[in-house]
């Protein structure tokens, strides 16, 4: 009679008899229990914020396994004890019931079925195996945001796939590519000792690194002069001494004009150039006619102002810099590569490398590795499916970064069959979403997210949710870069909270997947062992790291005059890129016009940028951050007052924005703070996964309007080479 459940969840624990009586330890009354747990202790666990990729250090305060509070970590050189709005917001996401709570298998359009991890591993593993056995290991693609995550590489090595692709081509790839080629790596500004700073193409108050803002405002207090060059009166311009609105896409001309002034007026640091620069004459030969006057014509900035900038840079040199920039200029114009080159050249001309108040390389360190546990066969490495670094395709693109916007193309051409997305959502963050949706045509698409992002919902055959960052322990990170700090720091995410769902850490996901794939013991270590092995050579124990949250290593990058050398072929800063010459380019920057220009009264260039409380696309589902957007009309598109008046537009009016790729409607913010040639939108909005209900359908995204182009030299998307026509009405 009695129905015996075949699948009863509740089991009697091993070694325990059935309870005949109530155990003494049991508190049955909920109210009493809830009162009791209030006496639990609060503990502190260090982690690294996941609100953007700055990895700010924070402390998660934990009580009865749950989040009690978050706070910036004083010792961390990115946060210096401060957190921005995103940091507070994303920590809160951890208890969102809308997270992907267990592995999902697609059973139809927009239809998923939950499966167990065992099933998920088995199915994904065997399917991947079948496909790769048939088509070759190099048809496997691992696409991710990028950065310091390492585990996928082991698998790629074994199957012979070089296809580790990051999002950088949609973000700042020209910068890292070119700095590496010209001076052997990235150099970062010393805010504390500079007397004069020019920021162009980087808005530290929008794409925030809290410590940078702390140090910039402190410098400002001391009377340091801050110049912001930006088509938009950005947040950083708020505290700047001067805002110089530039015609978008013409920063290269400004830089050429500054360089011309420095050289023609003999203001440049000749001894530095003689000692540390290769190719100066070659550069000058091509650019000696590009005067400040010529730059003025193109940029719309007066020749006097351009000369003034050059003279002020020189006067304060070497305690001055042109900040190396970020997303704003380095993936968005046809001339982004040359713009990045000119950034190096101007800083070299004022001789500020390795000088107090100038630019320094990031202090770094090397981690150890857990011992290899896999000794089986490895397939021969194939060639990159995206053509990055491949002769005849995109030879100058860094293979380590890849060309993410090409993924649908690679799938169509049969160069990619299995694609894994790790916390990466190209359906929203890469150009032309309709085109990116073709990713679903791959034989197998697997997404490893936290939330139901567009890429998972529209393309993934399987969704394997990873734990929220506060729920996972990770391989340690070197905290460095972007801003000068004399010593490298080591920090890590430690597991602060009990997971609220059956998501897993990346390492466990890869262990399960690779085992099912048929590679045994590829990751024969636990995350704890990995951390111990990584930290071993530096002499830090995981326990100590957990206790201190962030450990600063010995000071290793200090100003110097002697013994400066650059990690290039000539050991100098190369004004002329040899690799480019090999490919038939001249190798030095010269003026290149933007690809497209707006014409007529209702044409505008569509440019974008970061809002201080959102990280591009990944924070829009947070109710707190979206509340800020609502209170400050954050989805509005900026337009210059004069242009708006001509179109008969007032603050808050609805407009239709269109080009041959998309048509969207939005409201306008009419402002004096924008160059008349362009309209500006925050890069955050336009969420179209209806599962992300706080962000869904709010505003639009610039990616809606740009095609998936690939720059021939560094592979970027040219995201602001985009003209739209704007007309009144639409809602």
């Amino acid at each position, binding site marked *: 009679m009695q129905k015996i459940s075949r699948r009863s969840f509740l089991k009697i624990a091993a070694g325990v008899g059935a309870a005949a009586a109530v155990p003494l330890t049991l508190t049955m009354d909920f109210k009493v*229990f809830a009162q009791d747990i209030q006496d639990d202790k609060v503990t502190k666990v260090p982690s690294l914020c996941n609100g953007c990729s700055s990895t700010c250090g924070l402390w998660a305060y934990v009580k009865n396994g749950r989040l009690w509070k978050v706070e910036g970590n004083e010792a961390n050189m990115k946060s210096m004890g401060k957190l921005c709005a995103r940091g507070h917001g994303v920590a809160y996401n951890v208890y969102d019931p809308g997270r992907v709570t267990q592995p999902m298998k697609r059973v139809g359009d927009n239809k998923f079925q939950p499966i167990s991890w065992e099933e998920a591993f088995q199915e994904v593993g065997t399917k991947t195996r079948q496909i790769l056995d048939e088509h070759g290991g190099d048809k496997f693609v691992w696409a991710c945001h990028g950065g310091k995550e390492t585990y996928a590489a082991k698998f790629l090595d074994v199957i012979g796939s070089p296809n580790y692709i990051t999002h950088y081509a949609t973000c700042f790839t020209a910068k890292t590519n070119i700095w590496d080629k010209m001076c052997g790596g990235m150099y970062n500004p010393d805010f504390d000792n500079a007397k004069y700073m020019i920021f162009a193409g980087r808005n530290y108050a929008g794409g925030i690194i809290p410590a940078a803002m702390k140090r910039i405002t402190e410098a400002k207090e001391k009377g340091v002069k801050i110049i912001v060059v930006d088509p938009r009166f950005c947040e950083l311009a708020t505290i700047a001494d001067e805002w110089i609105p530039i015609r978008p896409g013409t920063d290269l001309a400004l830089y050429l004009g500054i360089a011309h002034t420095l050289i023609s007026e003999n203001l440049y640091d000749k001894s530095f150039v003689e000692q540390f620069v290769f190719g100066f004459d070659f550069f000058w030969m091509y650019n000696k006619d590009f005067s400040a006057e010529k730059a003025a014509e193109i940029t719309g900035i007066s020749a006097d102002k351009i000369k003034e900038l050059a003279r002020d840079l020189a006067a304060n040199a070497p305690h001055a810099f042109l900040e190396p920039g970020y997303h704003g200029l380095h993936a968005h114009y046809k001339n982004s590569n040359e713009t990045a080159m000119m950034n190096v050249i101007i800083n070299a001309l004022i001789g500020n490398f390795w000088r107090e108040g100038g630019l320094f390389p990031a202090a770094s360190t090397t981690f150890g590795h857990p011992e290899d546990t896999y000794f089986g066969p490895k397939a021969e490495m194939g060639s990159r499916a995206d053509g990055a670094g491949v002769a005849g395709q995109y030879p100058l693109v860094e293979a380590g970064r890849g060309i993410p916007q090409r993924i649908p193309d690679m799938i169509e051409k049969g160069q990619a069959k299995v694609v894994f997305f790790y916390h990466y959502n190209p359906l929203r963050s890469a150009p032309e979403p309709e085109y990116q949706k073709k990713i679903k045509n791959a034989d197998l698409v697997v997404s490893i997210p936290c939330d139901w992002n567009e890429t998972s919902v529209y393309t993934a055959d399987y969704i394997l949710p990873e734990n929220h960052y506060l729920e996972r322990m990770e391989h340690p990170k070197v905290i460095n870069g972007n801003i000068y700090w004399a010593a490298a720091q080591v920090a890590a995410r430690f597991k602060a909270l009990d997971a609220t769902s*059956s998501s897993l850490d990346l390492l466990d996901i890869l262990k399960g997947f690779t085992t099912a794939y048929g590679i045994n013991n590829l990751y024969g270590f636990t995350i704890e062992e990995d951390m111990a092995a990584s930290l071993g050579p530096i002499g830090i124990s995981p326990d100590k790291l957990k206790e201190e949250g962030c450990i600063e290593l010995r000071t290793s990058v200090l100003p110097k005059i002697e013994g400066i050398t650059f990690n290039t072929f000539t050991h100098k800063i190369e004004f002329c890129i040899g690799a480019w010459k090999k490919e038939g380019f001249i190798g030095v920057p010269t003026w290149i016009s933007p690809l497209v220009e707006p014409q007529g009264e209702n044409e505008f260039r569509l440019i974008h940028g970061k809002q201080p409380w959102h990280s591009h696309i990944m924070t829009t589902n947070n109710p707190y951050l979206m509340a800020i957007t609502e209170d400050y009309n954050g989805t509005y598109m900026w337009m210059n007052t004069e242009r708006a008046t001509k179109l008969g537009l007032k603050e808050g009016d609805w407009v239709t924005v269109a080009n041959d790729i998309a048509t969207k409607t939005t409201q306008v913010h009419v402002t004096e703070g924008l160059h008349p040639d362009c309209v500006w939108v925050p890069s955050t909005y336009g969420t179209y996964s209806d599962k992300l209900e706080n962000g869904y359908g709010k505003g639009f995204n610039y990616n809606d309007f740009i095609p998936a182009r690939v720059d021939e030299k560094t592979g970027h998307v040219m995201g602001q080479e985009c003209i739209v026509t704007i007309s009144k009405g639409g809602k």
Partner: protein
Amino acid sequence: MEKIKKWYGVLMGSITEQNKAYASLFIIFADLFKYPEKENYNELLNGEIDKQIEQLSRLAGHPIITSFKDEIGSYEEIVQAFNDCFLGITTPFAPPVESVYKVWTTDDSFQVPLKNQKGHLLGDSALHIRHIVQALGLEIPTEYEMMPDHLTILLELYSYLNQEGLISEAEQFKKDHLDWLPDFYNSLIKIERNQPYSNIVLKLNEVLKQ
């Protein structure tokens, strides 16, 4: 009278048939909130489940009549309903988890706004269930370890308490942890495809109320 009977059973060291039937009844309900496997679907469809509920509830002294078989449609439809209602791939959705329908914690010291909000996982109730499960020497599957207040587990636990004759504990448990079903029901009916789940919750609440 019911209670005395039950207590009598406990005191005599034997669990009455009535108790067993009552406990079994909730095992059946617990099963209905798991992912619908084909086998379970068939049992639902051919009326086996309705029949068992009728018999067990009668034996248990809380007779109810259900006709879930009329509401389930095809197998694909019940899977779709399960997905729509519980998984969160579409919104609105209504996870069958107690924490979501209760204020997260009554501990005023927390400095995250979850504290006095509803709609979040791992609330005080989840911690309590975890505590009860451990104290009774029980185990729950890894997938549910962090969602211990999932309705399936609550019902199995309630069943277990009754089964073991821990009647006053069961009563307390019902009062504390099965009081959110009306809120759950209200969330469910906002979902377009809510059958048979909304009706199951209704019937479950009915039998618990008796």
